[in-house]
């Protein structure tokens, strides 16, 4: 269920119940983040803390825009840990990649059932 990931009432409220724009935003979220789980795994494999911090920061910016609060909190912690050089952060990032995939699948399912109007 999309509500596990996104606070839909807050999202709808922010964009003044403009369903078409909310759908457009979520479609963009889906399309522009399709390759992010793979990117995260590459960073984990390379053990690149600064790349992880930058990618986490970018994801954080996206999650806040769509009110994906649980994902926002987790990626915020990953960004902080990567910046502080915590070696356990790579495991967390790998787990986040899985969660992100699940989120994107859920989002795709949600959008499949939505009409822009």
């Amino acid at each position, binding site marked *: 269920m999309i509500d596990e990931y996104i606070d839909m009432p807050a999202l709808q409220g922010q964009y003044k119940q403009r369903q078409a724009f909310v759908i457009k935003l979520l479609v*963009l*979220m889906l399309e522009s983040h399709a390759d992010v789980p793979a990117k995260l795994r590459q960073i984990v494999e390379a053990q690149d803390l600064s790349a992880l911090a930058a990618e986490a920061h*970018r994801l954080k*910016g996206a999650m806040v*825009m769509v009110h994906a609060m649980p994902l926002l909190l987790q990626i915020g912690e990953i960004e902080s840990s990567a910046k502080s050089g915590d070696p356990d952060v790579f495991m967390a990032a790998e787990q986040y990649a899985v969660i992100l995939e699940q989120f994107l699948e859920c989002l795709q399912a949600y959008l499949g059932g939505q009409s822009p109007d």
Partner: protein
Amino acid sequence: MKRVFCIDDEPVSLLVLADLLTDEFDVTTAGSGEAAMVLLHDGLQPDIILLDIIMSGMSGYELCQKIKSDSALREIPVLYISSLASGEDEAYGLEMGAEDFIHKPFHPPVVKARIHTHLQLADARKQLQRRNEDLEALVVERTSAIVRKTEQLLAAQSAIISAFCALAETRDEETGNHIRRTQHYVRALAEALRDHPRFKTALDEPTIELYYRSAPLHDIGKVAIPDAILNKPGKLTAEEWEIMKTHAYHGYNAIAITERSLMEAGDNFLKFAREIAYSHHEKWDGSGYPQGLAGDAIPLSARLMAVADVYDALISRRAYKAPFTHETAMEILAEGVGKHFDPDIATAALRIGDRFREIAEQFAD
């Protein structure tokens, strides 16, 4: 409509910003710092820039620095819009030259309010700059006008002197190059004394220049003396001498009348000319004429002229005497130290005697 340029490598953020602003502004977006620079160099002229900080490739800090170091772009306000939360991040961003920092998640009314504020500030800056440029242009124009007026005034002064001198020369057979020599002696003396403790406050460059320019009028009063006396080939009688002495007053009077009618033009040119014409026959010990002034009561301009005039009279041929040599003239000046002449001025003349001789040779009759 003002143009807002939004730069963020996160497409979702760009979409949200564009949606927020598009009803009030012309919105252009770029997905990276590099793409933004290409657009800016291709002539995009935004009124304000909203800039993410953490971007893949060129960071927002780096892009801001490039914008602020480009003279064509630096006046564009830059507002960071970032989820970097620390005060250090914000301070560093502002050090790079940005105007403001908006934190994500942002509140749409706050973003709009900040944009409006910075657009107004930028407009005010531009107006101020235009006003400054207008004022600078006005100052240049007014200064040129003043320079032109000053040049006209100086030309008028020169014309007055030339006219007076031409008049004097037609009347006085002795005048000739005497006028040129004496004005050069006066300047040489003034320059020799400009660092002297008694004179250094009075003898600045403009004053010396005015002395030089007004000195030729010292004998202008002679135009009022009858030819029979002025050009008499022999010694004057006591009565004739009394008439001759009135040239100082006539000179003073002619210049004073001119001075009153030119009061508005008001520099010291005619004042010095009047002093010189009236007082150059005064003597340090009080035995001169027309007022019998003594010591520092005699205007400095006239004390300088007294030395110059006497030296030149001594080395010049007259109907009643042969010219003295330079050495003899200098000896006579030395005898007059503290009696006829201000001791410091006469001493200076003795010290620069060679310069006096050069001037005499340069403007020989």
